[in-house]
C-alpha cells in the first residue's frame, strides 16, 4: 500500500486501506479495555464497538487486498506490514489513557466516521458502497453512545468534567487530519467514489461543537494539526508497540495456520 496515487494503483485500494487501518487500530485499542472497564455494562458495550470495528476492518482490508492485486488478504495486511505502511488516522493509534481519553477519542472518531460513511454509501464503487452501508448502521449507534457519554461526563461531577477537559486538550490536535486531502482523495472524489475529506469539515466540526457545548467543554486553540497517519508521512511511537503486540504470533511462527 502506498501513500499517493501512483501509476497502476487502484485508488480504491488506498481508500479501503485507510478505512481498514483506522478501523483496525481503533478496534484493537478498544479491545484492550476488555475486562477492565468502569462498569460491567460499559465493558460489554466497549467490546461491541471493538467487534464492529474489527469486523469493518476485515471487510475494508479484504477489499484493499483484492484491489491491490498482490494476493494479500485482510490478515496478510493486518499482521505482516510494519508501522510505516499503515495509513490510519493518528488519532486512533494513541494509547487508551483513562476512560475519558478513550470515550472522547471514540466520539471524535465516530462523529467523523458517520458523516464519511454517509458519503461512501453513495459511492459509485459498489463494494465501497456496500461496506459503507453495513458500517454506517454500526457507526450511528457508536456515535450516539460515545456522544452521550462525553456529554454526561463533561456535565457530571467536577472531577469528571476536569478529566474530560484534559482529555479534549490532548486529543483535539489530531482532529485536523480527518479533513486533509491529497491527490488520491482528489481522484476518488472526481470519480464519485468517495467524498473529498475537506467537504466533511463543516458538518463534522458543527457536530463536535454541539457536543462540546452540551458537555460544557472547550476545544483548545490549535496552531498546527498533528497529521501524517493517513498519508504515511508520520506516525506516533505508539503504533509500533501496538503492532509488535498484535503481530507477534504471526511473526514468531510464520506461515502457520491458526
Amino acid at each position, binding site marked *: 500500500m502506498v501513500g499517493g496515487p501512483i501509476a497502476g494503483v487502484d485508488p480504491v485500494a488506498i481508500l479501503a486501506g485507510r478505512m481498514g487501518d483506522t478501523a483496525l487500530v481503533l478496534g484493537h485499542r478498544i479491545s484492550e479495555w476488555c475486562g477492565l472497564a468502569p462498569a460491567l*455494562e460499559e465493558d460489554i458495550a466497549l467490546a461491541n464497538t471493538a467487534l464492529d470495528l474489527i469486523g469493518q476492518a476485515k471487510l475494508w482490508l479484504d477489499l484493499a487486498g483484492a484491489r491491490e492485486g498482490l494476493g494479500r488478504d485482510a490478515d496478510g495486511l493486518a499482521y505482516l506490514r510494519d508501522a510505516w505502511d499503515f495509513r490510519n488516522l493518528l488519532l486512533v493509534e494513541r494509547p487508551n489513557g483513562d476512560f475519558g481519553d478513550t470515550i472522547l477519542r471514540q466520539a471524535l472518531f465516530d462523529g467523523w466516521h458517520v458523516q464519511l460513511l454517509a458519503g461512501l454509501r453513495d459511492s459509485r464503487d459498489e463494494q465501497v458502497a456496500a461496506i459503507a452501508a453495513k458500517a454506517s448502521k454500526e457507526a450511528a449507534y457508536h456515535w*450516539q453512545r460515545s456522544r452521550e457519554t462525553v456529554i454526561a461526563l463533561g456535565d457530571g461531577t467536577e472531577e469528571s468534567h476536569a478529566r474530560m477537559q484534559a482529555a479534549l486538550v490532548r486529543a483535539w490536535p489530531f482532529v485536523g487530519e480527518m479533513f486533509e486531502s491529497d491527490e488520491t482523495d482528489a481522484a476518488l472524489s472526481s470519480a464519485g467514489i468517495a467524498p473529498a475529506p475537506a467537504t466533511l469539515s463543516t458538518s463534522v466540526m458543527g457536530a463536535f461543537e454541539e457536543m462540546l457545548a452540551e458537555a460544557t467543554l472547550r476545544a483548545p486553540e490549535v496552531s498546527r494539526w498533528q497529521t501524517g497517519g493517513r498519508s504515511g508521512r508520520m506516525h506516533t511511537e505508539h503504533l509500533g508497540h501496538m503492532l509488535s503486540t498484535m503481530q507477534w504470533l504471526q511473526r514468531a511462527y510464520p506461515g502457520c495456520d491458526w
Partner: protein
Amino acid sequence: MSDEWPLWEVFVRGRHGLSHRHVGSLHAPDAETAIRNGRDVYTRRNEGVSIWVVEARHISATAPGDKGPLFEPSEDKVYRHPSFYDIPDDVGQM
C-alpha cells in the same frame, strides 16, 4: 443516597408482532443509558427489535401470600374454556 447506579428491568420484543418479554436486569445511571445498555447486554445475538426499561423500584407486584385468593378462584371456571362444550361434529367448524 446510594452511589450505586439504579437497577433496571429490561423487556425485549423479540420479533415484530410479539409482546415485550422480561429478559433480565442491569444497572444504569439514567433511562436513556439503560436502554443503550439493554441493547448492548441483551441483544448481542440478534434477539430483539424493541426494548423497554423500567427502574426496578417502580414495579409493583402481587404478594406471594396472596397466591391462593388471587389465582385459585379461577381454577374451577372451566366453562370459560372452549373445550368445556360438546358440539356435535356435524355442526362443522366452530
